[in-house]
């Protein structure tokens, strides 16, 4: 049987993959997808803690409600973020972050 540590390690590795994507990729849409990976890694560790924190024979459902809220907020974030990317593309004709440097010091 898998232990809580195995789930936490899987979650942490998924977070690391997403983090690597944010650091290494130059396409803003791929960076956005990597952000989603990191968000889902946090959800996985929350569900793991929920299952391993048993009270009165039931998992801790408060954590699952929190995951539900995170998924909802993430969906709203994707909608707004992609609208921002479309507006940015319309202004600059690119999604390559090295061409989007007007805020750079």
């Amino acid at each position: 049987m898998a232990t809580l540590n195995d789930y936490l390690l899987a979650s942490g590795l998924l977070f690391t993959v997403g983090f690597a994507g944010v650091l290494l990729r130059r396409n803003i849409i791929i960076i956005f997808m990597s952000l989603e990976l990191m968000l889902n890694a946090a959800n996985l560790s929350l569900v793991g803690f929920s299952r391993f924190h048993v009270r009165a024979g039931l998992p801790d459902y408060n954590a699952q409600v929190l995951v539900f809220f995170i998924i909802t907020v993430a969906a709203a974030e994707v909608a707004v973020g992609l609208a921002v990317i479309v507006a940015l593309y319309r202004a600059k004709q690119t999604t390559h972050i090295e061409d989007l440097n007007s805020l750079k010091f």
Partner: protein
Amino acid sequence: MPSALFWIFVLVMLVFGVMVVVNRSPVASALSLVVCFLGLAALYISLDAFFLGVIQILVYAGAVMVLFLFIIMLLDLKAEQRRHFNLIAMFGGIVVIVLFVKVLWDVCYGFQGGNAVFPAIQNTEHGDTWQVGMALFQQYKLPLQMIGALIVVASVGAVLLSKRELK
């Protein structure tokens, strides 16, 4: 869930997560992300969170990925051509990631409470969807309303941002 199945789904999730990062074509990345989220939904189901597994597939693999693919097609993105790496940034990124995995390993396997095997849960007459729903509509009424308001604000904002002239 048997241990072998757990590791298979972890492997699917991580391999396709890496594919998201290394694929040059944005469409291939988006499709890899769908498979990665399917593996994640299977892990949720292995943790007896059936409701969240279904929600993960419906919201992420369904709605969010359709939105991503739609935007990729709309912007008509090609596979990346320019590959001149900033060597310092790449070196820094790899060092940070290696250190992160090291810390993660130490924390996970030095955490005694994490060695617990699955505690038994009793089979109740209502499933976990009922339990989550009861918690959501009894304990968390106000946050639920606030999330609803947030969704309205987000959709209005997305429409406003897509207008041609921002005033």
